């Protein structure tokens, strides 16, 4: 077991790779009542074509399988649903699917080990029947329709579709009514057996625990499985260019919603480039705030003109095979926001960054990183998501002071490229 201590946030990470390939991470939090465990597989909605270890043929499955599988994992052979069983034990259980991973979790104060039996049992024992697969199509159908009524989800998805020609990030995680109709139990078993091998999974635990003890308890509950070989993931070749610059959808909203995307070159998560990814991510966070944060000139101008009335949300999203910036919010005039943003970027690229502003925003981001260690849920989720990107979350707080103005200026020129920008609008 390896112990990594971070003196800045005064936390420790205990990490162990088990014989069957499973990685277990523990971040103890003394004094917290809540205990949180999350078990994820490095498999999300982006993986619909792959070569199963030991096979030679490519397997292609309908979109939305990873999410469908997540729903169906709770079903057990004894007729019980593990979500119900866990609730009966008195813990709060859930699961979710993103484009690059799927995760199962629960949180509780008491009954942790009792719940651990059920939790580790159900994730290791799929039980799919024709009947239970059919039933789920109705529920997921309603989930898809629920998202159809979320304008913020639509404007986001449309921005992705404007940026990506082929890469599956452009698709809805849950699939469509049509693609899920093609899902059957054979497909689910095949995906399960491929991606739910311990060597493709990681577990994170946070709360008031003795790390050695909890890792032993996890080991006891693992069924015997051999680590399988490498899964070859096949992604369509994605051109560097965008699909189209502007896309608009009509929906009943009081004021237009916008999402501005900036497509970046995908980052490879190979070892060695890990520090580079973290540094780049930090630089982009600072840059987004310099350009459009609450103390920026652009924000002030647009606010005073009445074009925006709240700060936009700004994210840098990346994983295997894709990377982009997304800036989104509501505005009476998204076109003007878009133009003004472009101008501001160009001006900053030409004139360079103000050193005092840079230092202040870096300090601010430092504080944001510290705040992430308040809550066991946030901690565990962050370590899991970063792990699948090849990153140890502590790296952010370790690297931040190494990111300087000159490096940020270089990233500003490389990433904030006018030809990679798209504008998505949802309006009446």
């Amino acid at each position, binding site marked *: 077991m390896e112990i990594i201590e971070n003196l800045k946030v005064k936390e420790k990470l205990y990490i162990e790779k088990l014989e069957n390939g499973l990685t277990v991470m523990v971040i103890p939090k003394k004094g917290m009542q809540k205990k949180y465990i999350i078990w994820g597989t490095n498999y999300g909605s982006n993986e619909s074509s792959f070569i199963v270890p030991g096979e030679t043929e490519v397997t292609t499955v309908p979109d939305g399988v990873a999410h469908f599988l997540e729903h169906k994992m709770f079903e057990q052979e004894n007729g019980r649903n593990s979500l119900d069983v866990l609730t*009966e034990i008195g813990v709060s259980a859930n699961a979710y699917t993103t484009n690059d991973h799927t995760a199962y979790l629960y949180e509780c104060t008491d009954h942790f080990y009792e719940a651990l039996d059920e939790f580790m049992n159900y994730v290791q024992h799929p039980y799919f029947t024709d009947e239970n697969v059919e039933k789920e199509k109705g529920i997921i159908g309603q989930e898809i329709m629920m998202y159809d009524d979320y304008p913020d989800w639509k404007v986001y998805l449309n921005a992705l579709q404007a940026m990506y020609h082929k890469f599956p990030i452009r698709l809805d995680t849950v699939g469509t009514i049509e693609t899920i109709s093609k899902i059957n139990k054979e497909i689910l078993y095949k995906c399960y057996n491929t991606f739910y091998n311990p060597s493709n999974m990681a577990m994170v635990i946070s709360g008031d625990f003795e790390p050695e003890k909890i890792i032993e308890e996890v080991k006891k509950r693992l069924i015997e499985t051999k680590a399988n070989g490498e899964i070859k993931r096949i992604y369509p070749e994605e051109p560097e260019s965008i699909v189209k610059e502007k896309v608009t959808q009509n929906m009943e909203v009081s004021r237009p919603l916008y999402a501005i995307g900036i497509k970046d070159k995908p980052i490879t998560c190979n070892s060695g480039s890990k520090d580079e990814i973290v540094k780049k991510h930090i630089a982009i966070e600072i840059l987004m705030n310099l350009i459009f944060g609450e103390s920026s000139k652009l924000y002030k101008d647009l606010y005073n003109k009445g074009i925006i009335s709240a700060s936009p949300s700004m994210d840098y999203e990346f994983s295997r095979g894709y990377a982009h910036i997304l800036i989104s919010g509501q505005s009476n005039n998204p076109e003007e926001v878009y133009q003004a943003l472009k101008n501001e970027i160009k001006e900053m690229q030409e004139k360079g960054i103000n050193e005092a502003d840079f230092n202040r925003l870096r300090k601010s981001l430092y504080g944001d990183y510290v705040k992430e260690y308040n809550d066991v849920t946030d901690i565990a989720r962050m370590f899991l998501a970063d792990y699948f990107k090849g990153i140890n979350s502590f790296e952010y707080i370790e690297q931040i002071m190494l990111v300087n103005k000159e490096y940020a200026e270089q990233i500003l020129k490389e990433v904030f490229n006018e030809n990679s920008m798209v504008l998505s609008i949802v309006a009446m």
Partner: protein
Amino acid sequence: MEHQVKEIKQGINLHLLQKDKFKTNLIAVFLTTPLNRENVTKNAILPAILRRGSKNMQTQEAISMELEEMYGASFNCGIDKRGDNQVLKFYMESINDNFLPKGENITAKTIENLLEIIFEPLTEDEGFKKEYFEQEKKNMKQIIEGKIDNKARYALDRCIEEMYKGQNFALYKCGYVEDLEKLDRKELYNYYQNLLQTCKIDIFVSGIINDTIQETIINSNEIKELKERKPEYSQITLNVTAKNQGQTVQESMDVTQGKLILGLNVELENEDMQYDALIYNSILGGSANSKLFQNVREKASLAYVASSSYLKTKNNIFINCGIEIENYEKALKIVKEQLEEMKQGKFTENDIEVAKKCMIDAIKTIDDEQDTEIMYFFGQEFCSIKLDVEQYLERISKVTKEAVLNIAQKVEIDTIYFLRN
């Protein structure tokens, strides 16, 4: 002592929550005033104007720069409806001094900045600054009109509006466009000055608290200038005032999925029964084991969302389902069957145990989140019998099947609201 309350002056309380397990200190100030049509819009716009600038930090840019310099301290404000009260909420959160790289001291500064934004607004000839006032009026109009954007939330708000037609609780917490037009920046400023001298004020500090922090608050000019008061506000009442006896309201909008909301009345004899009602709600629709989740979602496959929540301040339960529009009758029938089963006592001791475990788990974690704990103790301000977290736990663990069955008899459908296309 976990939760300490000090009366700074009559009507102004300082709540101290000593916690050393967090990286942050959180300061919250709540101004509570009766909810009514005359003032709802005024109260709603006030935080929006205040956050634009204060006497010493005159622009949003100046405030933001100050906060960024303090390692990303964050300021938040908003408006809430709590029973028949309206609450103006202000928060500032900053990193605990122990986690700052250079051992700086920013906690006192955090308090000073928050108090300044609330109590020392930027003025211009005896009113709020014209530019800020005019602009926030426009923004507020957009926020009010924006209530249609979140369809699920909108459906719930509309159900409440129909249930409480003509009563204060029906009011939308952000106010009304037609009332915005009538506001005057000088009158509004005077209104605010009067509000500050008369309303209920609660100040919460959660984190590592030392004597200096308390003194910073109590001895600040802003607090010194406040007078004693006998604030007017509503305590929780048990009277059921929604009297629509199962009316049905349907509304059309451009939605893909129908949103079905049922507003229920729970007629209680005393405040203590609210804890039984919490368990009732948990069995009905509070978890994945609940009757609604099991029957509407898992068995009938009609919905992804099927749940219920108990609104303690008004003694209502709201049932919420997202369904295919054509399944309205089917879903409604299943929902009604669940209510009937509860009435007939078709739930087990085990259901009660599960509901208790869920609740106990949630209660035990109140202490793990600073904002949750603050809201818990703020909520207690409106109860006539005040319970600390331990007592709350004890009370929940004592709920019996009989008590829940008794609640079931007191539950009646008041309004069925359906948002469709």
